[in-house]
């Protein structure tokens, strides 16, 4: 049995390891399109800060790790997939046959339709190659404009701030990280960043980027009429799943590759995982590209199980969850943090101390949560959401004091273990 994995990010690597574990005699080939050992994009910010060397971003540390596990890693781009003959064509026109295929090619940043987006000094922050270019220009005191204060933008923001650059963030939405915060929390994050000396412009768009011959190499024109002189512009305005190479393979693509509850695509023996996959969301039951590390890992593991053991247990979807550190202020969001129709909400706000907790319920079950300034036991929010444990009398207690979340968790977890032993 030959398992071929296209894409050597976290989804691909976790899948490769699980495939080898479940099918030791099968062969596993892991293909990546970048000339680096398999690495983790989400470690890039720590490389930018200078906390780690490039090697610190590698998913597995020892040079012979993959070989020792019997996983063959090849650095080559796949240019097309023929699902009828189960054959891949690689960048050098050679071919590779598979019995089972996993597509975990991740995503690529989208290019906003702005004049000057291809100028030198305008970069994405997505690959290690991007990171090296950013490090060159983002020197202390340099002027950096970050386009986009979404999840990825805000993560990079933290790293750039640590490089002591003059940072301006331009976001077209009315708040930061609008896809993981409500207005109260998003505004608190902005206030915090501004207090830390970052120039945050919300409800603002970049109109055009121009080359400049005087002073700084770039001029960033905003739609409010202002211009900013910059050494570096970083574009973090969203990503799109890497599916172009699938062409007429017959594999169904909507926002990403649509997978069923066994991670199989619309074509038999072809699976997809991670940022490229549009898999079931636990909370809504809909199919959605979550594009987060925990989901990539879970998808990779589930896909490997289906590829080896067949389609045994339908999976109920991954919980969308994020944790973000904006210059020292930590925020989280889980599941239906924005609430559900007919649901109830409990909120605790302390703007001065930058503390916030919001719980969303459907009847007496926690379905979503978001927090600011909390670092202890945050995972329990995932636990409560995904086990869908009825909270009973604790629901009312949480309605009057959401910060007793951990007490509610323990009370219901223990109740549950009593139920199980009964």
């Amino acid at each position, binding site marked *: 049995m030959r398992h071929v994995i296209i894409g050597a990010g976290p989804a691909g690597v976790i899948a490769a390891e699980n495939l080898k574990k479940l099918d030791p005699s099968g062969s596993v080939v892991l293909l990546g399109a970048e000339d680096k050992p398999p690495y*983790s994009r*989400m470690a890039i910010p720590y490389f930018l800060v200078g906390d780690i060397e490039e090697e610190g971003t590698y998913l597995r540390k020892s040079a012979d790790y993959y070989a020792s596990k019997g996983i063959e890693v090849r650095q080559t781009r796949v240019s097309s997939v023929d699902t009828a003959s189960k054959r891949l064509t690689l960048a050098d026109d050679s071919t590779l046959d598979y019995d089972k295929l996993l597509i975990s090619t991740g995503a690529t940043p989208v290019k906003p339709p702005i004049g000057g987006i291809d100028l030198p000094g305008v970069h994405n922050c997505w690959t290690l190659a991007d990171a090296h270019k950013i490090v060159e220009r983002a020197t202390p005191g340099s002027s950096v404009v970050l386009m986009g204060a979404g999840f990825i933008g805000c993560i990079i923001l933290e790293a750039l701030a640590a490089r002591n650059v003059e940072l301006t963030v331009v976001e077209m939405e009315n708040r930061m990280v609008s896809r993981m915060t409500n207005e109260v929390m998003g505004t608190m994050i902005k206030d915090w960043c501004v207090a830390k000396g970052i120039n945050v412009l919300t409800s603002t768009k970049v109109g055009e980027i121009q080359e400049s011959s005087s002073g700084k190499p770039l001029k960033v024109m905003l739609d409010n009429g202002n211009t900013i002189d910059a050494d570096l512009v970083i574009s973090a305005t969203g990503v799109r799943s890497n599916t172009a190479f699938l062409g007429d393979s017959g594999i169904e693509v909507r926002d990403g590759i649509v997978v069923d509850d066994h991670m199989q695509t619309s074509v038999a023996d072809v699976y997809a995982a991670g940022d490229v996959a549009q898999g079931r969301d636990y909370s809504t039951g809909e199919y959605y590209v979550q594009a987060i590390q925990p989901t990539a*890992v879970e998808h990779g593991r589930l896909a490997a199980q289906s590829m080896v053991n067949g389609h045994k247990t339908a999976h*109920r979807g991954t919980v969308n969850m994020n944790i973000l550190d904006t210059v020292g202020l930590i925020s989280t969001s889980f599941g239906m943090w924005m609430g559900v129709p007919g649901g109830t909400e409990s909120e605790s706000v302390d703007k001065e101390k930058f503390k916030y907790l919001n719980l969303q319920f459907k009847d007496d079950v926690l379905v979503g949560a978001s927090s600011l300034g909390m670092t202890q036991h945050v*995972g329990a*929010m995932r636990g409560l959401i995904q086990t869908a444990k009825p909270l009973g009398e604790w629901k009312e207690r949480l309605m009057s004091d959401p910060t007793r979340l951990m*007490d509610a968790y323990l009370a219901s977890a223990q109740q549950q273990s009593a139920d199980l032993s009964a």
Partner: protein
Amino acid sequence: MQKSLHIDPGKCTGCLQCESACSLENEGLFNPAKSRIKVFTFHEEGRFVPYTCTQCDEAWCMQACPVDAITLNPENGSKDVNADVCVGCKVCTIACPFGTINYNASTGKVVKCDLCGGDPQCAESCPTGAITYIDSDATGLDKMRAWASKTDNAGA
């Protein structure tokens, strides 16, 4: 035979010896705020519940880590954070459905129980036998794990 921590909240009097011992062993100072085991107080019922990592088999924290900073200790089955490798991204803290791996802002790394390398000081210091370190089979941990494994989509 692998051993695990067995916690019997019924015996806990809330003396917090475990938190002190844990912080002394792992942080070098008596500071319950830095303890990896935490005693929760239920005032209404006058009940105390010591709580820490169960070293679960699924090890969501370990799987989610983007840089392989959490590894399985083959000797005692604990999942240990290698602070030199951890970048402090905190993804493990949201992935763990128990909430037992936590970020420490002063070091920029995460901390979790590592069973003190096989000689857990919380159990050692507990005067009432509420925390004991015994053969895994006898701990009832399986039930807690069964509950948590509802979080596992694959359903095993």
